[in-house]
């Protein structure tokens, strides 16, 4: 009996973990494009630079994820690139925003602001409720 319980709980935990992972990655994925575009918006960028900048902001990203994303954005004409000689190895692709990309970025920015405000507001309500509860409880 106990054996079956442990087995069940194990599977449940595993499933839970995957869900959390999945949700987290879904959230990341949503803002990833926005982040990359904003990095590129600051100036022409080489993929490694983008990863470095993201990393500096504690946003870990694999190159294997970045390259397909850049290609997709480029194919959607949000990005353009030019070849630049590198000191080591083959020439590098340096990406920059197109006009279309800039417009797209503005839209994303607006959406993000709305979203983050909304999220903040929602979580703030939560926090203030907690605070209120605490206040009620304390006296």
């Amino acid at each position, binding site marked *: 009996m106990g054996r079956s319980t442990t087995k069940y709980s194990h599977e449940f935990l595993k499933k839970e973990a995957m869900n959390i*992972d*999945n949700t*987290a*990655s879904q959230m*990341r*994925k949503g803002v990833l494009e926005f982040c990359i575009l904003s990095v590129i918006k600051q100036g022409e960028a080489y*993929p*490694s630079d983008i*990863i*470095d900048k993201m*990393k500096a902001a504690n946003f*870990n*990203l*694999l*190159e*294997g*994820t970045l*390259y*397909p994303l*850049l*290609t*997709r954005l*480029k*194919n959607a004409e949000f990005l353009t690139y*030019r*070849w*630049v*000689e*590198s*000191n*080591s*190895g*083959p*020439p*590098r*692709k340096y990406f920059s925003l197109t006009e279309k990309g800039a417009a797209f970025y503005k839209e994303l920015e607006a959406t993000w602001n709305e979203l983050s405000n909304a999220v903040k507001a929602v979580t703030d309500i939560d926090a203030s409720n907690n605070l209120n509860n605490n206040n009620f409880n304390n006296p």
Partner: protein
Amino acid sequence: MKQVININFQGRVVPIETTAFEILKNYTDSLGRHFANEEGKEEIINDIESRIGELFQERITKGATCITDDDVNAIINSIGRPEDFEPMDDAQPSAAASSSSYQQQSNTTSTGHKRLYRNENDKVLGGVCSGLANYFNIDVVIARIIFVVLLFSGVGFLTYIIMWIAVPSTASAEIGGTRKKLFRDPDEKMIAGVCSGIGNYFGINPWIPRVLFLLPFLSFLSRWGHWGGFWDFGDVIRFTFSPTSLIVYIILWIVIPEAVTTSEKLEMKGEKVDMHSIKNSVMEEMKGVGKKAEKFGKEASGVINEKAKAVAGDVQNFSRRSSGGLGNVIAMIAKIFAYFIIGCVCLAIFGTLIALIVGAVKLYPLKDYLLDGNWQNASAWGTLFFFIIIPFIGILIWLIRKITNSKSNSRMLRLTFISLWIVGWVCIVFFVSSIDKEFSRKSNLQDQEMNIINPKANKLIVTTSSTLERTGKRYRWSRFESFDEFLDEDTLTIQNIKVGFIKSPDDSFHVRVLKEARGFSRESANANASKITFNVKQIDSLLVLDEGITINKNDKFRNQNIMVTVYVPVGKQIRVNGDYFRKIYFNNVFNINDYDRDNDYFDDNKWQSGVDYIMKEDGLYTLDGRKADGWNDREDRRRNAKNNRSNTYRYDKIQDSLERRQDSIENRNQQRVDSIEKRNERVKDSLDRQLEKEKNKLENSNGVILNTEPGNLSANIMPGVMILPDIN
């Protein structure tokens, strides 16, 4: 102990452990599978692979002898495995850490040197210029201007082609491409290793490029002394090619990097592009297609369908493959040829236009002698500006726009130029037709005959009044000198004169002068012909002709021409002095067919100035018994003239000059003898007269007749006269 192999990864040779290679291969295969359904799959994989290549390069330039398992794993972790891509969990802190440390390393240790690539993104032809501009950090426009300037000397063209072929393109990032790198080979060098590097690159013996470089250079040296023959095309070729090889060598020396490190030397030798490697890559592709076909097949759920798809895939793949590999090469060669031909045509047109402009400038002084009325003048100017200068400017502008890569709206510009050029066409049609009309009718031949006294010597020398032997009026710098020479303030002298010799019907010389001109009607042509003044004078054995026909601005040039026929009795000698009558024959330009009837007898009487001829029953002969033949005689004369001019390879110089001196001495002697004979004649005449007078006197006075014959008397006098002053 591990085996190390060389692989060609992203266009560079990488020494790698066999196990590491297996890991790498599995990884790239997994990437291929992962992105199989992704749009732009090739590009993504390419990007990742070139990143891997960059990381490999870093390891090697940092001093690693080869790529190890650990290296490959570290790189794979930093980039991420396919299964880590989509879900993107953060469960790989180690990978992240190693990646970040890696990046820092790459930033601090970028000590490798720059590479020269052709820039595919900003190119006019092959991207060589923009690649060079990138490499040297200069503006593309400057690089292009330098190349265009060099192009005119032939140097730029060769260099460009060589670099186009040898320098890798930025877009040449083929997976597992078998491209070699062009390096200078320091191990086998003679001067800088350029030739041995080229030999390595093309897989040939380095002596082949060496000989190719040396051959023209040697011929250049050997011909250094006398490449003055400008119109000799062979000389031109040699002239352009010989210093070119030297300059090309120096350019290549500067541009091609030397293979210093082991990996560079490996890259230089590279993997040979042969049937085996092509077969390998094709086989690999086939395998991939097989897998894809399988997948398709399952979706279609039919064995037959599956097979068909596989075949279709095969075919499609094969066609893609061939168009990608061999097709590219063929396309590139075709492109080079097309550009070469277009370039040649453009250069030819450009050159012609420049020549026309120069010609127009040089012909400008003649304008007033040809053009009649405002309309013709206007159309001439119109032709010059709209037909010649406009396309010249157009090509210049096109070239400049091409160089600066100007993308602005050129439609208006093009329309303007084309419409202006159409105006030019109208002008030239009007101009040519009006000029043609002026020359449309031919005059009657106006005949003028003149008897001449047989000279004492058996020889008649045709010469010219030397009105044109003006000093300081000779411009030797162009071929249009003749016009300057013949142009005076308001008169133009044209040497539109033909001289022919035919057998005299009797035993004395005759001269016949035929005049002819053209005009818009027969009357005007006749009027033009009658205006011709041409003097023929005889001074004993000299027949002095005018140097040319003088035309003033009112008369205009209407192809006035003169035919002088000298009737020479059998047994008499004839000779034309100097360079006369071989300068310009407008006849030949304007009315070749007019003289058919005359050409027959002129042809029988071919002669060359400066050569003595004797008239025989069946025509002219040279003194050494050869039948007169203008062409051969001319060859003789030309050879002599050439020898006289250049004193490099002449062994018979002294003999020549002696002969010439002898010639002139003979001439002078002849003249002296002539004049002495004339004096004798005069003296004899006067003596005869005196004698007659004396006789009469005597008869009148005493009727005694003395035996004094004139011959005796003159014989008595002769010795005194015969004491000639220095004949030499």
